C-alpha cells in the first residue's frame, strides 16, 4: 500500500507498485484532468506537481511518491476557488483550442514561473517543452508573460 496526498487530501494505492502515477490519478482516483498523451515523458500532458515540482506523471511510478504531496490541475486553484495566476492568464489570453494539452501546460508553467518569476522568451524556449498539437504556442507565450505579471502584482 502506497500512501500520499493528492490536492491536500490523503490518498493511497494498493495495486501494482510500478503503475504510473498518471493511471493511478485517472483510473483509480478519478482525477481525469491530468491527461495521457505519450506515456514516455515526451509531451507533458500528464504534468503534475510532486512536492511542488512539475513532473511527468506517466513516467513516475506510484512507488516513487510514497509520503509525497501531489497537486493536479483540479487542485491548482486555492481551496476557496481563487484561480492560480497562470489559470487567470490562460483565461484572459484565451489560450485553449482543443484544450487537451492545457492542464499540462498550466502545471508546467506554474512551476516554471517559481523558478523564473519574470522569464525572457529565451527562458521560455529553454524550459517549456510541453507539446500542443493545436499550436497554441503563440498564446501560451503571451499568457506566460501575463501570468508572471499577475503573480508579481499579487493577483
Amino acid at each position, binding site marked *: 500500500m502506497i500512501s500520499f496526498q493528492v490536492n491536500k487530501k490523503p490518498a493511497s494505492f494498493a*495495486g*501494482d507498485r510500478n*503503475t*504510473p502515477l498518471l*493511471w493511478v490519478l*485517472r*483510473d*483509480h482516483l*478519478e*482525477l*481525469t*484532468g*491530468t*491527461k*495521457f*498523451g*505519450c*506515456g*514516455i515523458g*515526451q*509531451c507533458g*500532458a500528464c504534468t503534475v506537481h510532486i512536492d511542488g515540482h512539475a513532473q511527468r506523471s506517466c513516467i513516475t511510478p506510484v512507488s516513487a511518491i510514497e509520503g509525497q504531496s501531489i497537486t*493536479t*490541475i*483540479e487542485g*491548482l*486553484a486555492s481551496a476557496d476557488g481563487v*484561480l492560480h495566476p497562470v*489559470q487567470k492568464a*490562460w*483565461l484572459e489570453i*484565451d*489560450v*485553449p*483550442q*482543443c*484544450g*487537451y*494539452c*492545457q*492542464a499540462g501546460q*498550466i502545471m508546467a508553467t506554474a512551476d516554471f514561473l517559481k523558478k523564473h518569476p519574470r522569464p525572457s*522568451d529565451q527562458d*521560455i*524556449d*529553454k524550459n*517549456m*517543452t*510541453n*507539446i*500542443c*498539437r*493545436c*499550436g*497554441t*504556442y*503563440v*498564446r*501560451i*507565450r503571451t499568457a506566460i508573460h501575463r501570468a508572471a505579471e499577475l503573480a508579481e502584482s499579487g493577483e
Partner: protein
Amino acid sequence: MSGNEARMDLERIDVSRRRFVVTGASIAGGFVLGLPAIGLSNDVVGGEADSEHQIGFFIEIAADGSVIIGSNQPEIGQGVRTALPMLVAEELDVEWSKVSVRQMPLGIVKTADGYAWKYGGQGVGGSTGLTGNWDFMREVGATARQQLIRAAAARLNVPVSSCSTRPGYVVCSSPAAEIPYGDLVAAAARLDLPAESPPLKEMKQYRIVGRRQKTIDAMDIITGKARYGIDTREAGMRYAVIARSPYLNGRVRSFNDTEARKVDGVLDVFKIDGPEPGEPYLILANGVAIVATSTWAAIKGREALQIDWDPGPNASDNSDAFWQQNHEMLKSTGQVVVDDGEFDKAMAEAHQVIERHYQVPFVSHQPLEPQNCYAHVQEDRCHIIAPTQMPSGASRAAAAVTGLPRENIQVDMTRVGGGFGRRLTNDYVAEACMISQKTGWPIKLQWTREDDVKHDFYRPAGLHEMRAGVDGKGKVIAWTQRLVSASKYYRRPNMTEERLWEAELYPDDFPRKIVENFRLEYFHNPIGLPRGSWRAPAHTANAFVIQSFLDEIAVETGQDPLQLHIDMLGEEREMEYGNHGGPTFNPGRLVRLIKFVAARIDYQKQRPDGRGVGLATHFTFGGYAAHAVEVTVSPQGQLKIERIVAAIDCGFAVNPQAVEAQLQGGTIDGISTALGLEITVKDGQVQQSNFHDYPLLRIAAVPSLFETHILPYDDTPTGVGEIGIPSAAPALANAIFAASGIRLRRLPIGDQLQKAMAG
C-alpha cells in the same frame, strides 16, 4: 477530409436535411423547433433539460434568464461550440454572458427511405462546421425569438407588430410592458410554427457575432473539468487495449496469452479480425484484444502477450523502394486528367522550360488525445461515447459490427482532443464495439501513442514533377504537374482506378485557366500504408509544390517573386472552381493578402546574407491565406525562424478570436510538419512510434514575432480550420532559399540544410 469526400458527405447532409422536412414545415430549423418540447426529456439540449423551459431542441431558457444552447457539432478545438451558439444567441437576442452550451448527441431518425437528421447534419470536416450551419443556426435563434414575441403578444393581447425584443426580454410599446423570455418559453413552445423563417438580422445589428468571444469552455479546460472521450467512466466499465499487427496487412498466426493472463487485473484476451488486404477498412488491423480492470493492467497484459505474426502481403514494402518506383513511373505516361489549351505546342514554343521535382512524405495526424471509445453493446441496443468528427460514421461503424438497427444505437459525443482529419474515420468505434460485443461488458478502448503513430490513415505521399514553359517576357505560358502518389481513395468502396487521382489533385487550383496551356497527369503507386484525410488534404502537398515552384520560376527568369504572384493572380474576378470550396475562386483576394503580408514583413528591405523572406498564398476550401516568413540560416545550416506574418480572408469572421487561433495553429501545423515529420516504412512496418521520432514542434521553434491578420472581405463566412496551413510550408521553404540559396524540394526539411552547408 478531401474536397470530394467532404462534398459527398455534405451532399448527404444537405439532402437529408431537405428530406428531413417531412412535417411540411418549410425550413430546416422549423421542423427542429416544431417538435413539441414535451416528450423529449432524454435527448433535448443536454439530457436533463426541463421541458417547461425548452423551446425546440436547441434552446432552453430558465426562469432566471440563463440560456442553454445545444451544440450539435463535434468540438475538436476549432471552436464550433462557441461559434454556433453565438449565431443562435445573436438571433434569439440574449446576452452572451447568460449563455452556456451543452453538447447534443447524434440525432438520426428512421424514415421510409433511410435515415434523416434530427438536429440538422452533424459532422465536422472540410472546414464546413460553421458554414454548413450558418443559416440553420441563425434561423433556429430567429424562429425561437419570433415564437417568444408571439407568445408575449398573445398574453398581452396586442398585435405582434407592437412587440420587439431587447436581450432576454420581449418588449411591448403600447401598453408599455416587458416580459422576460423565461416566463414565455412554455407558451412559445406550444405555438405552431410560421411557414417561413422570420427575417434574419442585418450584419450591422450584430452584438455577439463578429466580435471576439472567448472559448466558452475555457474555465472547464483550465480547471481540469472538461470531459474528453478518454475521461469517460460508466458503471461496470472495463478497459481494453489491442495489440495490432505491426505489419501492414499482417495477421495473427497464433498467440500465447499465458503470461498476459497472469497480469493482475487482466480479464480476457482474444483475437480481433481486421479487414482482408485491399478491402475497405472497418478497423485498421488484425490483432489481439486485452480486457482488464484498468488501463495500466491492459497495457501490461499486452506487453506480456506473445504473438506470432504472419507478415502478410506487404512484408517487403519499403519507403526507399516506394520513392524509387515513383521516379521510375514518372518516365512513363500517366493518366492525363486535365489537358487545357495546346500544352505540347506551347511547351515547344517556350523561350525557357523549367523543370523541378518535389517530394512530399507520408505524415500522421497525432491529435494529442489518443484514440479511444466507450462502447456498450447489448442484445437490442448499443451505447457509444466517442471523441469523433463524424458521429454518423460512428453509428454506421457500430451498426456494421453489431448488426443492430441504427436507431437503436445511441452516440454521445465528448469534447475531442484534436481532430486534424483522424477522427473522420471511426475504426476505433468499431473496435470498441467488437470487444464489448464479445465480452458483454461496457468497454473503454484505449489506444496508446505508439498505437496512434503505427496505425493511422496517413496523408498520402507523392513525387511531383513540375514543368513550366516561359515566354521571352517571363510570362508562364505552359504548366504541368505530374504526380505519382499513393492515392487516398485506395481501399474505398465503389472507387474505380480512374478516379484515384481526384483525392490528390484539385484541378481548379491555381494556376488553372490562368495558364492557358495546362496539363495534370496522375500515377498511382500503391503501398500498404492506410491513407486518409489529413487537415486540408491534398492542399498541403500541392500548395507546397506549386508555391515553391512559382518562386523557382521567378528566380530562374529573373523576376521578383512577389511581382510574379501579382502578375499571375491578376485582378479580382470570380473564376469557376468545381472542387470543394467552390463554386468560385477569386485570385485577386490572394493578391490583396500577399501584398499585405509582404508589406508587414518589409519584404523589399535588403537583408544581409543568411537572412531572407519567403512568401506564399493558397486558396483552401473557400478561404484565402498568405504567409510571409523570415528566417536566418547559419553557415552551419542552423535554421531559425525569426518572424511569421500570416493573413487570412475568410469573408466574414464570425468569431475573430477563433479565426486567429486557427490561423496561428494552422501555420504552426504547417511548419511543424515541414520541419520534421515523416512516416516511413521498412519491411512492411511503420518505423516511427512516438513523439521522440515523430517530433511535433515545441514552443522554442515558434518565433516571438508572430502576427496574424484577418482581412474582412464580405458578409459570407468561410470555414477556417484548414485555410491557415497550406501556404505556411512553402513560405518557409522560399525563405530558406532567400536566406541561403539552398532550395529544399523534399519534405521534411530535417537535417538537409546542415548537410547542404557541409557538402
